[in-house]
């Protein structure tokens, strides 16, 4: 590794750690927003929207480019309580199978701890209604409870995150929150290191992605981009992918996933940028799994979109593994796109550009008029 890339890798590590540590189940992403605002201080103008998306605008010449990575990571919500025992039933927020959560430590936003147990049934994977939140705070403990000792009883509707302990294992990062904090880190790193940016850049860190690309739906509408790149994480074999990929062999570009088919022009843009940045690319075709791209590409009258996915592998419990080199190369690829290595504004046909520019101008005037 060259000294420059070593330095870059160290920088990425220092970005990733606070992002992995931040509390952020779907709909409760405020801590992640705080970390991102700190990491990208001075990088542009900030806005938060109604659903919780964090939007960074770095004004520039060229088409409006949307970059999206989601902030939320899976969590649980308390659905029913047994006040006597301090046990509760839960509903999973986001894409985790019940079996993966058994034994997982939980942390509520106010710091209370709990653990997921289950009504044991041999020979079958647990269903969600077999899972239990064990708080240890039954009626007796509840009477003595104070907020200070962290033993306030639960309430229906309380939301918890997986109490994650991110670890660096050799070349790999291991954490429950890599999907998609790894994407957030790659995006932050790319925005920090890219020079001569050829776009009017709108980076949107989306909320509630795990509940069905909800943040991306409203966030894209508000920005009305001319093209978009979604950065997410793809897990091996989950639930099924038809093109093989491996960890440590570079970022994936998605050809097809749930609700999304790669836009040929955007695909070519990613390929060219990868060649320019000397980043190896893998291809991803997955069934029944998707990303924010399905909402982004369908916003308004449609947005040419590409998905860059960081390869990951499940550990079987709550954790995933991501290869540090893949993360580094994903950031390099995004930076190359920002610098116009994939062909920037000038590549689009002239008539298209005139039209989109005119529309952009009109949009801004209208917005200005209303504020």
């Amino acid at each position, binding site marked *: 590794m060259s000294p420059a890339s070593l330095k870059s890798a160290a920088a990425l590590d220092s970005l990733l750690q606070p992002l992995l540590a931040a509390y952020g189940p*779907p*709909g*409760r992403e405020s801590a992640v927003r705080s970390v991102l605002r700190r990491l990208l201080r001075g990088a542009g103008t900030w*806005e*938060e*929207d*109604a*659903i919780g*998306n964090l939007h960074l605008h770095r004004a520039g010449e060229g088409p409006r480019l949307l970059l999206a990575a989601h902030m939320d990571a899976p969590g649980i*919500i*308390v*659905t*029913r*309580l*047994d*006040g006597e025992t301090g046990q509760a*039933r839960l*509903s999973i*927020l986001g894409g985790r199978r019940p079996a993966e959560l058994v034994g997982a430590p939980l942390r509520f936003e106010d710091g209370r701890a709990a653990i997921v147990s289950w009504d044991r049934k041999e020979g079958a994977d647990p269903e969600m209604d077999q899972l239990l939140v064990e708080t240890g705070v039954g009626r007796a403990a509840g009477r003595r409870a104070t907020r200070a000792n962290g033993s306030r009883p639960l*309430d*229906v*509707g309380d*939301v918890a995150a997986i109490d994650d302990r991110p670890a660096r294992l050799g070349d790999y990062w291991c954490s429950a929150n890599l999907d998609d904090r790894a994407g957030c880190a790659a995006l932050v790193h790319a925005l920090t290191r890219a020079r001569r940016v050829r776009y009017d850049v709108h980076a949107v860190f989306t909320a*509630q992605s795990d*509940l069905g690309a*909800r943040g991306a*739906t*409203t*966030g894209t*509408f*508000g*920005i009305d981009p001319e093209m978009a790149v979604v950065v997410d994480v793809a897990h091996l074999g989950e639930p099924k992918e038809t093109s093989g990929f491996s960890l440590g062999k570079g970022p994936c570009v998605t050809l097809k996933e749930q609700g999304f088919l790669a836009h040929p022009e955007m695909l070519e843009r990613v390929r060219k940028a990868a060649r320019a940045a000397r980043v190896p690319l893998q291809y991803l075709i997955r069934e029944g799994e998707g990303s924010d791209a399905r909402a982004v590409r369908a916003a308004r009258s449609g947005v040419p979109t590409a998905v860059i996915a960081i390869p990951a592998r499940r550990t079987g419990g709550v954790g995933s593994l991501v290869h540090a080199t893949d993360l580094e190369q994903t950031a390099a690829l995004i930076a190359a796109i920002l610098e116009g290595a994939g062909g920037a504004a000038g590549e689009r046909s002239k008539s298209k550009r005139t039209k989109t520019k005119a529309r952009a101008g009109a*949009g801004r005037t*209208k*917005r200005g008029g*209303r*504020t």
Partner: protein
Amino acid sequence: MSANGARGAAPAFREDFLESLSNAAGVSGDEHRVREIVAAAVRDRVDTLEVDAMGSLVARIGVEGAGVRNGNARTNGSARKGRLPHVMLCAHMDEVGFMITAIEKEGRLRFRRAGGIDPRVLVGQVFRVGGAGVRGVTGILPPHLVSHTEEDKVIAADDLYIDIGASSREDAMRHVAIGDTAVFDTTYEAWGSVRKGKAFDDRAGCAVLASLVQERPPVPVTAVWSVQEEVGLRGATAAARRVAPDLAIVLEGTASGETPGAGPEESAPRMGGGPTLTVHDRSLMADARLVDLLRRTAAERRIPTQWKRPGIGGTDAGRIALSGAGVPSAVVSVPCRYIHAPAAYLDVRDARRTVELVWHALRAIGKEWSES
């Protein structure tokens, strides 16, 4: 502050609205009878009243001239400085029911369900079919002719038919056409604080909303009585895009859980336990700030509230929240026992408290939201 200057007590819950709305037939896509009742109830109280392209009824109060944003603006969910937030209140007019899909040679009507109905409640029921409200029953063999083993079986919905007493297809077609809708034949009744009727999901919400607009609300309000909620939250999807509100509160009649076999912690919410608030359902993470405002308002007014069980169901709020650049949204429900079935119960005190809670929440929104 002319249009929205009213700062008085909450309007009364109009039980007469609930009664006529509950008795009216309005299966998804066929809501016009319900719409006419609502329109008559609110026409003199609102600034504008219109029916949108899908059939939803849209009433504006204090919205014109209040400088509200239009559909393409971006918003961070807060009102601009110095103006009151524009609130969309929404209740759906449609009910789960049936559509006649075929008329057989013998005069029997085959049907499909519109919306989620447990097939186990269909057998032996009386229905009102079509615009004329012809009565029909889902007939089965009398017990004399049924073997013991058959008694334990649930008859699949596809094997049932509605019998209107017609002797032939021609006879049946004098009263019914393919595509007609049918509802449970249930008449509204009252005893004590209990009210019995069909379609409380969501005529309870419709009646609460019609009651609310009898007085001028303290903020600009667009009230939407939406169509086709039960078949996929469709009417509200279109309406929200056009209304483009700053905030939304959806009014519902939701399932209470206190039925035999349910454990104590499964039974929430309870009928009579007060307005029910949603944190999370299959369509929505309710806006945390708006839920907090509702809870504080309830505490100040000494209105009991309860939580809807998270993770189940979905409402128009899920679509409204994702419309345009996003709309902070919450759901307030009247807990009802036995929804999506022939007859439901509600406690009229819950409906009254829901009107009171939403009214005072609108006042609090006027105070708190415009400053942010």
